[in-house]
Protein backbone atom coordinates (compact mmCIF):
# COMPACT_ATOMS: atom_id res chain seq x y z
CA UNK A 1 0.00 0.00 0.00
CA UNK A 2 1.40 3.41 -0.86
CA UNK A 3 2.84 5.64 1.81
CA UNK A 4 2.43 9.38 1.56
CA UNK A 5 4.35 11.92 3.56
CA UNK A 6 2.62 15.18 4.43
CA UNK A 7 4.85 18.08 5.42
CA UNK A 8 3.03 20.81 7.33
CA UNK A 9 4.50 24.25 8.03
CA UNK A 10 3.21 27.54 9.27
CA UNK A 11 2.51 29.85 6.33
CA UNK A 12 5.20 32.40 5.50
CA UNK A 13 4.60 35.48 7.60
CA UNK A 14 2.91 33.58 10.43
CA UNK A 15 5.03 33.83 13.56
CA UNK A 16 6.88 30.58 14.28
CA UNK A 17 7.94 30.90 17.93
CA UNK A 18 9.21 27.32 17.94
CA UNK A 19 11.39 28.04 14.91
CA UNK A 20 12.78 31.11 16.66
CA UNK A 21 13.64 29.10 19.75
CA UNK A 22 15.39 26.43 17.67
CA UNK A 23 17.23 29.17 15.81
CA UNK A 24 18.51 30.52 19.12
CA UNK A 25 19.66 27.03 20.08
CA UNK A 26 21.59 26.59 16.83
CA UNK A 27 23.26 29.96 17.28
CA UNK A 28 24.21 28.98 20.81
CA UNK A 29 26.01 25.97 19.31
CA UNK A 30 27.99 28.28 17.07
CA UNK A 31 25.97 27.96 13.84
CA UNK A 32 25.82 31.70 13.50
CA UNK A 33 25.40 31.93 9.74
CA UNK A 34 21.96 30.34 9.77
CA UNK A 35 19.53 33.06 8.79
CA UNK A 36 16.22 31.39 9.47
CA UNK A 37 14.55 28.34 11.02
CA UNK A 38 10.97 27.18 10.55
CA UNK A 39 9.67 24.15 12.40
CA UNK A 40 6.93 22.06 10.88
CA UNK A 41 5.71 18.52 11.20
CA UNK A 42 5.67 15.41 9.09
CA UNK A 43 2.77 12.97 8.99
CA UNK A 44 3.15 9.66 7.21
CA UNK A 45 -0.02 7.93 6.10
CA UNK A 46 -0.44 4.50 4.53
CA UNK A 47 -3.43 4.41 2.23
CA UNK A 48 -5.10 1.94 -0.14
CA UNK A 49 -3.90 1.85 -3.76
CA UNK A 50 -5.69 4.31 -6.01
CA UNK A 51 -6.19 6.85 -3.25
CA UNK A 52 -6.62 10.19 -4.98
CA UNK A 53 -4.42 13.16 -4.14
CA UNK A 54 -7.62 15.14 -3.72
CA UNK A 55 -8.65 12.88 -0.89
CA UNK A 56 -5.34 13.40 0.92
CA UNK A 57 -5.67 17.13 0.33
CA UNK A 58 -9.12 16.96 1.90
CA UNK A 59 -7.68 15.21 4.98
CA UNK A 60 -5.15 18.01 5.32
CA UNK A 61 -7.71 20.73 4.89
CA UNK A 62 -10.25 19.20 7.26
CA UNK A 63 -7.97 18.00 10.02
CA UNK A 64 -4.25 17.43 9.58
CA UNK A 65 -3.48 21.11 8.96
CA UNK A 66 -5.22 24.31 9.97
CA UNK A 67 -5.56 26.13 6.62
CA UNK A 68 -5.86 29.47 8.40
CA UNK A 69 -2.24 29.33 9.56
CA UNK A 70 -0.61 26.32 7.90
CA UNK A 71 0.26 25.03 4.45
CA UNK A 72 1.25 21.52 3.38
CA UNK A 73 3.08 19.46 0.80
CA UNK A 74 2.25 15.91 -0.12
CA UNK A 75 4.96 13.56 -1.39
CA UNK A 76 4.95 9.86 -2.12
CA UNK A 77 7.41 7.78 -0.15
CA UNK A 78 8.86 6.28 -3.36
CA UNK A 79 9.94 9.78 -4.44
CA UNK A 80 12.63 9.58 -1.79
CA UNK A 81 15.77 7.65 -2.71
CA UNK A 82 17.15 7.31 0.81
CA UNK A 83 20.44 9.14 0.19
CA UNK A 84 19.51 11.83 2.69
CA UNK A 85 18.75 9.39 5.52
CA UNK A 86 20.42 10.23 8.83
CA UNK A 87 23.57 8.34 9.73
CA UNK A 88 23.13 7.33 13.33
CA UNK A 89 26.40 7.49 15.25
CA UNK A 90 27.16 4.89 17.92
CA UNK A 91 27.10 7.66 20.49
CA UNK A 92 25.14 10.82 19.81
CA UNK A 93 27.54 13.69 19.15
CA UNK A 94 26.23 15.60 22.13
CA UNK A 95 27.27 12.78 24.47
CA UNK A 96 30.52 11.73 22.82
CA UNK A 97 33.85 12.71 24.26
Amino acid at each position, binding site marked *: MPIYRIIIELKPG*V*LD*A*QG*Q*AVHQGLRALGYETISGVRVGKCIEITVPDQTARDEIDAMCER*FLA*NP*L*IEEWWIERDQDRDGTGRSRVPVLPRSQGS
Partner: protein
Amino acid sequence: MMRFGVVIFPASNCDRDCVHVLRTVLGQEVEEVWHEEQSLDGLDAVVLPGGFAYGDYLRAGAVAARAPVMAAVRAFAQVGGPVLGICNGFQILLEAGMLPGAMLRNAVLRFRCTMVHVRVESTQTPFTRTLREGQVLQMPIAHGEGNYFAPGSLLSTIEEAGQIVLRYCDAGGRVNHGANPNGSVRNVAGVRNPAGNVVGLMPHPERASEDVLGSGDGRLLFESVIMWLETRKRSLVGA
Protein backbone atom coordinates in the same frame (compact mmCIF):
# COMPACT_ATOMS: atom_id res chain seq x y z
CA MET B 1 -31.58 27.27 39.13
CA MET B 2 -29.99 26.55 35.76
CA ARG B 3 -28.47 23.32 34.50
CA PHE B 4 -24.90 23.61 33.23
CA GLY B 5 -22.95 20.96 31.37
CA VAL B 6 -19.18 20.86 31.83
CA VAL B 7 -17.63 18.78 29.05
CA ILE B 8 -14.76 16.52 30.07
CA PHE B 9 -12.24 15.33 27.49
CA PRO B 10 -9.30 13.05 28.25
CA ALA B 11 -6.74 15.47 29.80
CA SER B 12 -9.18 18.25 30.59
CA ASN B 13 -7.85 19.61 33.87
CA CYS B 14 -9.97 22.63 34.79
CA ASP B 15 -13.25 20.74 34.69
CA ARG B 16 -13.46 20.34 38.48
CA ASP B 17 -12.78 24.02 39.02
CA CYS B 18 -15.67 24.89 36.71
CA VAL B 19 -17.96 22.39 38.42
CA HIS B 20 -16.95 23.79 41.82
CA VAL B 21 -17.70 27.39 40.88
CA LEU B 22 -21.00 26.64 39.19
CA ARG B 23 -22.25 24.17 41.79
CA THR B 24 -20.77 25.33 45.09
CA VAL B 25 -20.12 29.03 44.61
CA LEU B 26 -23.13 29.82 42.43
CA GLY B 27 -25.55 27.06 43.50
CA GLN B 28 -26.37 25.80 40.02
CA GLU B 29 -27.05 22.27 38.85
CA VAL B 30 -24.08 20.81 37.00
CA GLU B 31 -23.82 17.77 34.80
CA GLU B 32 -20.39 16.42 33.94
CA VAL B 33 -20.55 15.52 30.26
CA TRP B 34 -18.10 12.90 28.96
CA HIS B 35 -16.59 13.60 25.54
CA GLU B 36 -18.27 10.55 24.01
CA GLU B 37 -21.73 11.83 24.91
CA GLN B 38 -23.95 12.51 21.91
CA SER B 39 -26.74 14.47 23.53
CA LEU B 40 -26.90 17.61 25.63
CA ASP B 41 -30.63 17.38 26.26
CA GLY B 42 -31.84 19.19 29.35
CA LEU B 43 -28.87 21.56 29.62
CA ASP B 44 -29.23 25.33 29.70
CA ALA B 45 -25.57 26.19 29.06
CA VAL B 46 -22.35 24.36 28.20
CA VAL B 47 -18.78 25.02 29.36
CA LEU B 48 -15.70 23.61 27.63
CA PRO B 49 -13.04 23.78 30.34
CA GLY B 50 -9.28 24.25 30.13
CA GLY B 51 -6.65 21.56 29.99
CA PHE B 52 -4.81 19.68 27.30
CA ALA B 53 -7.61 17.67 25.69
CA TYR B 54 -6.27 14.57 23.93
CA GLY B 55 -2.80 15.77 24.92
CA ASP B 56 -3.14 18.68 22.47
CA TYR B 57 -1.73 16.28 19.88
CA LEU B 58 -1.52 17.59 16.31
CA ARG B 59 -2.59 21.11 17.42
CA ALA B 60 -4.15 22.39 20.62
CA GLY B 61 -7.82 21.45 20.53
CA ALA B 62 -7.61 19.77 17.11
CA VAL B 63 -8.49 16.23 18.13
CA ALA B 64 -11.02 17.32 20.75
CA ALA B 65 -12.81 19.43 18.14
CA ARG B 66 -13.63 16.17 16.30
CA ALA B 67 -14.83 14.29 19.42
CA PRO B 68 -18.37 12.84 19.38
CA VAL B 69 -19.69 15.40 21.88
CA MET B 70 -18.78 18.29 19.59
CA ALA B 71 -21.58 17.51 17.13
CA ALA B 72 -23.97 17.93 20.07
CA VAL B 73 -22.25 21.15 21.19
CA ARG B 74 -22.55 22.50 17.65
CA ALA B 75 -26.26 21.62 17.50
CA PHE B 76 -26.78 23.14 20.95
CA ALA B 77 -25.12 26.38 19.79
CA GLN B 78 -27.06 26.46 16.54
CA VAL B 79 -30.34 26.76 18.41
CA GLY B 80 -28.94 29.59 20.53
CA GLY B 81 -27.64 27.69 23.56
CA PRO B 82 -24.86 29.57 25.36
CA VAL B 83 -21.43 27.92 25.07
CA LEU B 84 -18.32 29.13 26.89
CA GLY B 85 -14.85 27.86 25.98
CA ILE B 86 -12.14 28.60 28.52
CA CYS B 87 -8.46 28.39 27.50
CA ASN B 88 -8.20 24.91 25.94
CA GLY B 89 -11.98 25.08 25.52
CA PHE B 90 -11.45 28.26 23.47
CA GLN B 91 -8.83 26.45 21.36
CA ILE B 92 -11.31 23.61 20.80
CA LEU B 93 -14.03 26.04 19.62
CA LEU B 94 -11.55 27.63 17.19
CA GLU B 95 -10.51 24.24 15.84
CA ALA B 96 -14.16 23.24 15.52
CA GLY B 97 -14.78 26.34 13.42
CA MET B 98 -17.37 27.57 15.90
CA LEU B 99 -15.30 30.71 16.52
CA PRO B 100 -13.11 32.62 14.04
CA GLY B 101 -9.30 32.59 14.13
CA ALA B 102 -6.52 30.30 15.32
CA MET B 103 -4.00 30.03 18.15
CA LEU B 104 -0.25 30.21 17.76
CA ARG B 105 2.40 29.51 20.36
CA ASN B 106 3.06 32.46 22.64
CA ALA B 107 5.34 34.97 20.94
CA VAL B 108 7.37 35.28 24.14
CA LEU B 109 8.71 31.69 23.96
CA ARG B 110 7.30 31.05 27.41
CA PHE B 111 4.32 29.41 29.04
CA ARG B 112 2.55 32.35 30.68
CA CYS B 113 1.00 31.73 34.09
CA THR B 114 0.08 35.07 35.59
CA MET B 115 -2.74 37.40 36.58
CA VAL B 116 -3.85 39.72 33.78
CA HIS B 117 -6.34 42.50 33.18
CA VAL B 118 -8.82 42.35 30.33
CA ARG B 119 -11.20 44.98 29.04
CA VAL B 120 -14.76 44.14 28.07
CA GLU B 121 -15.23 45.03 24.39
CA SER B 122 -18.61 43.46 23.70
CA THR B 123 -21.61 43.03 25.95
CA GLN B 124 -23.57 41.35 23.15
CA THR B 125 -23.09 37.89 24.65
CA PRO B 126 -24.93 36.06 27.44
CA PHE B 127 -21.64 35.97 29.39
CA THR B 128 -20.97 39.72 29.29
CA ARG B 129 -24.50 41.11 29.11
CA THR B 130 -24.51 42.42 32.65
CA LEU B 131 -21.06 44.00 32.32
CA ARG B 132 -20.38 47.34 30.70
CA GLU B 133 -18.17 48.11 27.75
CA GLY B 134 -14.75 49.22 28.91
CA GLN B 135 -15.07 47.42 32.26
CA VAL B 136 -11.73 45.98 33.42
CA LEU B 137 -11.63 42.45 34.85
CA GLN B 138 -8.77 40.69 36.57
CA MET B 139 -8.30 36.99 35.86
CA PRO B 140 -5.37 34.59 35.59
CA ILE B 141 -4.03 33.07 32.40
CA ALA B 142 -2.05 29.83 32.11
CA HIS B 143 -1.15 28.83 28.57
CA GLY B 144 1.63 28.18 26.08
CA GLU B 145 -0.53 28.67 23.00
CA GLY B 146 -2.68 31.71 23.53
CA ASN B 147 -1.32 33.91 20.79
CA TYR B 148 -4.59 34.66 19.01
CA PHE B 149 -4.21 35.07 15.27
CA ALA B 150 -6.54 35.90 12.40
CA PRO B 151 -5.37 36.87 8.92
CA GLY B 152 -5.95 40.53 8.05
CA SER B 153 -9.26 40.27 6.21
CA LEU B 154 -10.80 37.96 8.80
CA LEU B 155 -9.57 40.22 11.60
CA SER B 156 -11.22 43.26 10.01
CA THR B 157 -14.45 41.33 9.61
CA ILE B 158 -14.65 40.25 13.24
CA GLU B 159 -13.57 43.65 14.55
CA GLU B 160 -16.21 45.40 12.47
CA ALA B 161 -18.84 42.90 13.57
CA GLY B 162 -17.98 43.54 17.23
CA GLN B 163 -16.95 39.94 17.76
CA ILE B 164 -14.00 40.76 19.99
CA VAL B 165 -15.24 40.27 23.54
CA LEU B 166 -12.11 40.87 25.63
CA ARG B 167 -8.71 42.49 25.09
CA TYR B 168 -5.65 42.36 27.34
CA CYS B 169 -5.12 45.74 28.96
CA ASP B 170 -3.33 47.35 31.89
CA ALA B 171 -4.97 47.98 35.25
CA GLY B 172 -6.28 51.29 33.94
CA GLY B 173 -7.98 49.66 30.95
CA ARG B 174 -5.43 50.84 28.37
CA VAL B 175 -4.89 48.29 25.60
CA ASN B 176 -1.19 48.42 24.78
CA HIS B 177 1.79 46.28 23.88
CA GLY B 178 3.02 46.06 27.47
CA ALA B 179 -0.26 44.50 28.59
CA ASN B 180 -0.14 41.80 25.94
CA PRO B 181 1.10 38.58 27.58
CA ASN B 182 1.36 36.33 24.54
CA GLY B 183 1.56 38.33 21.31
CA SER B 184 -2.15 38.08 20.45
CA VAL B 185 -3.10 40.23 17.47
CA ARG B 186 -4.67 43.51 18.69
CA ASN B 187 -4.49 42.14 22.27
CA VAL B 188 -7.44 39.81 21.68
CA ALA B 189 -8.20 37.71 24.77
CA GLY B 190 -11.69 36.53 23.84
CA VAL B 191 -14.05 36.40 20.86
CA ARG B 192 -17.64 35.51 20.09
CA ASN B 193 -19.55 34.06 17.14
CA PRO B 194 -21.76 36.39 15.07
CA ALA B 195 -24.86 35.43 17.08
CA GLY B 196 -23.04 36.06 20.35
CA ASN B 197 -24.02 32.85 22.14
CA VAL B 198 -20.64 31.15 21.66
CA VAL B 199 -17.73 32.78 23.50
CA GLY B 200 -14.11 31.73 23.93
CA LEU B 201 -11.52 33.32 26.17
CA MET B 202 -7.98 32.51 27.28
CA PRO B 203 -8.21 33.82 30.89
CA HIS B 204 -9.71 31.51 33.50
CA PRO B 205 -12.87 32.98 35.07
CA GLU B 206 -13.30 29.83 37.17
CA ARG B 207 -9.98 30.57 38.88
CA ALA B 208 -11.13 34.09 39.74
CA SER B 209 -14.59 33.45 41.13
CA GLU B 210 -13.87 33.69 44.85
CA ASP B 211 -12.28 36.63 46.62
CA VAL B 212 -9.95 34.31 48.50
CA LEU B 213 -8.28 33.54 45.14
CA GLY B 214 -7.34 37.17 44.61
CA SER B 215 -10.18 38.14 42.30
CA GLY B 216 -13.88 37.51 42.06
CA ASP B 217 -14.22 39.08 38.62
CA GLY B 218 -14.57 35.77 36.78
CA ARG B 219 -17.79 35.11 38.65
CA LEU B 220 -19.37 38.06 36.82
CA LEU B 221 -19.30 36.10 33.54
CA PHE B 222 -21.09 33.13 35.09
CA GLU B 223 -23.59 35.36 36.91
CA SER B 224 -24.27 37.15 33.65
CA VAL B 225 -25.21 33.98 31.80
CA ILE B 226 -27.34 32.78 34.73
CA MET B 227 -29.26 36.06 34.65
CA TRP B 228 -29.57 35.83 30.86
CA LEU B 229 -30.95 32.29 31.14
CA GLU B 230 -33.42 33.30 33.85
CA THR B 231 -34.67 36.19 31.72
CA ARG B 232 -35.04 33.89 28.72
CA LYS B 233 -36.90 31.30 30.79
CA ARG B 234 -39.28 33.93 32.16
CA SER B 235 -40.01 35.30 28.70
CA LEU B 236 -40.70 31.78 27.41
CA VAL B 237 -43.05 31.04 30.31
CA GLY B 238 -44.74 34.39 29.85
CA ALA B 239 -45.27 33.85 26.12
